[in-house]
C-alpha cells in the first residue's frame, strides 16, 4: 500500500532535493561563471557576477590548441570503450550463460582490482610504458583505460545479460535457431540497451580519468584532463583560464550526459530493482 505523504512533507522533500542538487552542481556552475571573469576578478574573491568576458576562451584556444587534446580525449575514450566492449561482451556472455563454480570468484577478483590504489602500480606501469615506447601515445593510453575500466564493463554487461530470461534462449533453441541465429535475432536485440548504457558510462569514465592520462602523457597524446592540468603551471595559477579550459573539457560530456540521462540512469540502476 502506498504511504500517504502530506503536501507539506512533499514540499520539504522537494526543497531538500533541490538544495542537495544545487550543492553538488555549484562547483560546476562556479567554474563556468569564473571562466567569464578576468584573471584579477577570478582571484579577487568569491563573486557570482562575472564581467562576462570571453577573452579566456580566446586565449585558451590561441595559446594552447584546444582541439588537439579534445580529439585525443575522443579517440582515447571511445577507443578504450570499444576495446573494452570487445573483450567484455564475450566474457560477460559466457559468465552469464555458462557459469561455472568459479564465475563469482572471477567477478569478485576483477572488481577487487578496482579497490587497489592506482598509485601503487604507478612505477611498474610507467616503466613498462617507457620500455615499450607507449609513453605519450594514444594507443598506450587507450590500452590503459581499457584495462582499468574493464572490470566495471564486465560487471555491468554481466548484470544485463543475467536479466535476459534463460527460457527465451531455450525457446529460440526449440524454434530451430542456431547459435548464430540465437545471437543475431534474440540475444543481441535484447542486450543492445544494456550495451549502449555500458558504453555511455564507460566513455564518461574514460573521458574524466585524470590519474593515468596526466602521468602517462606530455604533449602528443595528452587529453583534456592533461590540458586542464597544464593551466596549473609553475608560473602560477590562472584561475579564469583554468576555468575556461575546464568548461570546455566538461562541455562535450555534459551535453552527451544530458541527452542520454535516461539511458544512464537505467544503466546505473539496472538489476537493482526487479
Amino acid at each position, binding site marked *: 500500500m502506498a504511504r500517504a505523504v502530506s503536501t507539506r512533507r512533499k514540499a520539504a522533500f522537494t526543497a531538500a532535493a533541490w538544495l542537495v542538487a544545487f550543492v553538488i552542481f555549484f562547483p560546476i556552475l562556479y567554474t563556468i561563471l569564473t571562466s567569464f571573469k578576468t584573471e584579477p576578478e577570478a582571484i579577487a574573491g568569491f563573486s557570482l557576477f562575472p564581467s562576462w568576458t570571453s577573452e579566456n576562451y580566446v586565449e585558451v584556444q590561441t595559446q594552447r590548441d584546444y582541439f588537439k587534446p579534445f580529439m585525443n580525449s575522443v579517440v582515447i575514450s571511445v577507443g578504450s570503450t570499444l576495446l573494452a566492449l570487445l573483450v567484455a561482451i564475450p566474457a560477460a556472455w559466457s559468465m552469464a550463460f555458462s557459469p561455472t563454480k568459479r564465475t563469482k570468484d572471477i567477478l569478485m577478483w576483477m572488481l577487487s582490482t578496482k579497490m587497489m590504489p592506482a598509485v601503487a602500480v604507478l612505477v611498474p606501469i610507467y616503466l613498462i610504458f617507457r620500455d615499450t615506447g607507449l609513453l605519450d601515445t594514444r594507443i598506450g593510453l587507450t590500452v590503459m583505460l581499457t584495462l582499468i575500466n574493464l572490470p566495471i564493463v564486465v560487471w555491468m554487461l554481466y548484470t544485463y545479460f543475467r536479466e535476459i530470461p534463460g527460457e527465451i534462449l531455450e525457446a529460440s*533453441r526449440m524454434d530451430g*535457431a542456431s547459435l548464430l541465429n540465437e545471437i543475431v535475432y534474440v540475444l543481441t536485440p535484447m542486450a543492445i540497451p544494456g550495451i549502449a548504457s555500458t558504453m555511455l558510462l564507460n566513455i564518461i569514465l574514460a573521458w574524466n580519468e585524470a590519474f593515468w592520462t596526466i602521468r602517462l602523457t606530455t604533449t602528443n597524446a595528452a587529453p583534456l584532463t592533461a590540458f586542464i592540468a597544464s593551466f596549473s603551471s609553475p608560473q602560477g595559477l590562472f584561475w579564469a583560464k583554468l576555468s575556461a579550459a575546464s568548461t570546455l573539457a566538461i562541455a562535450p560530456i555534459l551535453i552527451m550526459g544530458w541527452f542520454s540521462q535516461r539511458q544512464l540512469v537505467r544503466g546505473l540502476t539496472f538489476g537493482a530493482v526487479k
Partner: protein
Amino acid sequence: MGQITLKNVSKSFGATIIIPEIDLTIEDGEFVVFVGPSGCGKSTLLRLIAGLEDTSAGAIVIDGRDVTGEAPAKRKLAMVFQSYALYPHMTVAKNIAFPLKMAGEDKATIDRKVADAARILNLTNYLDRRPGQLSGGQRQRVAIGRAIVRQPSAFLFDEPLSNLDAALRGTMRLEISELHHQLKTTMIYVTHDQVEAMTMADKIVVLNAGNIEQVGSPMELYKTPKNLFVAGFIGSPKMNLINGAVAAKQGAATIGIRPEHMQISTSAGGWKATVGVAEHLGSDTFLHVNADGVGPLTVRADGEISVRHGDTVFLTPDPTKLHRFSEDGRAM
C-alpha cells in the same frame, strides 16, 4: 505422427538423482499430463524429452527414431513455457513467424501460416503489437501460436497456465483442450494442478520424487489409485485417509474414502461428527468435520444443505467406494 517412448531414461545432477530409470510410452495424438507436487521431476522429464537437458542414461525415441543425442530443434517438438518466453523486441506476428523463419520458409508461406495461427487463436487484431502490450492470456496464446505454426509431432507444455488468474486459467484450459481436438497432435502437459490434469488428459502420469507412481486415464486414477500417494493427490477435495481402529476393522492399515462418497444425515449414520467449517457454494456444500473415533474428514454434498458450524451430522461411507491400503501404502 508423434509417438514418444522413454526407455530407461534417468537424470542425475552430480550425485543427486532427479529421475531414476523411467519407462513410458506416449501414443500418437494422446494428451498426456505429467502431474505431481513441486520438485517431483515432471518439468525435468519434459525438458529431457525436449532436449533442453541431457539424459544421464537411457534413450528417447520419437516416431521410432532415437533422438537422445539430438539438439532440441531437430526433435520436431514445440514447447510452450510457463513464462511464455516470447521475444519482447518482436511483434506478435514476428514471434509466431520466428520458427518458420528459422526453418527457411518463404515469406508467402510464413504470412499464410501466421495468419492461420492468429485466426485459430483469436490474435488477428494483435499481430502488430509487442508482447509487453498484451494481457497474460493473449501472451500465452502467442506462445501457443508460435508452437503450432511449426506443425510439430508433439507439443510440450510446461505449466503454461500457472501465471494466469483463476478465471483465465479455466478459459485457457478449454482452449487448449479444443486445440488438441482440432489438431489431433500429441500433447505433453506438465502441471501441479490436478484439476487441469483430470479435465484435460487422455492419460495422466503421476510423478513423485522422480518416480512414476501410476499411469492411467483420469477415471482409472480416480477410481483405482494404486497407492496412497496417488489416492491423496488425485481428486479435489482430497480423499480422506483414515488410520487406526476404523481401518483395522476393514482389514487394512489405511482406508480411503472420497468426500463425495459419504452420505450425510442429521439424524442417523455410521460416524457421528461435529461440523467445523461449512462451505456453501450453491452447487455443492463442503463440510469439514471432526468424526468421533475417526478424525478430521472432508465431506461433499450435492446442492445446498443447511448445516452450520457446531452442528452434529452423521456420515455413512459408501462401502463400494472404500479404498483399502496396506502397511506399505499399496492398494489392496
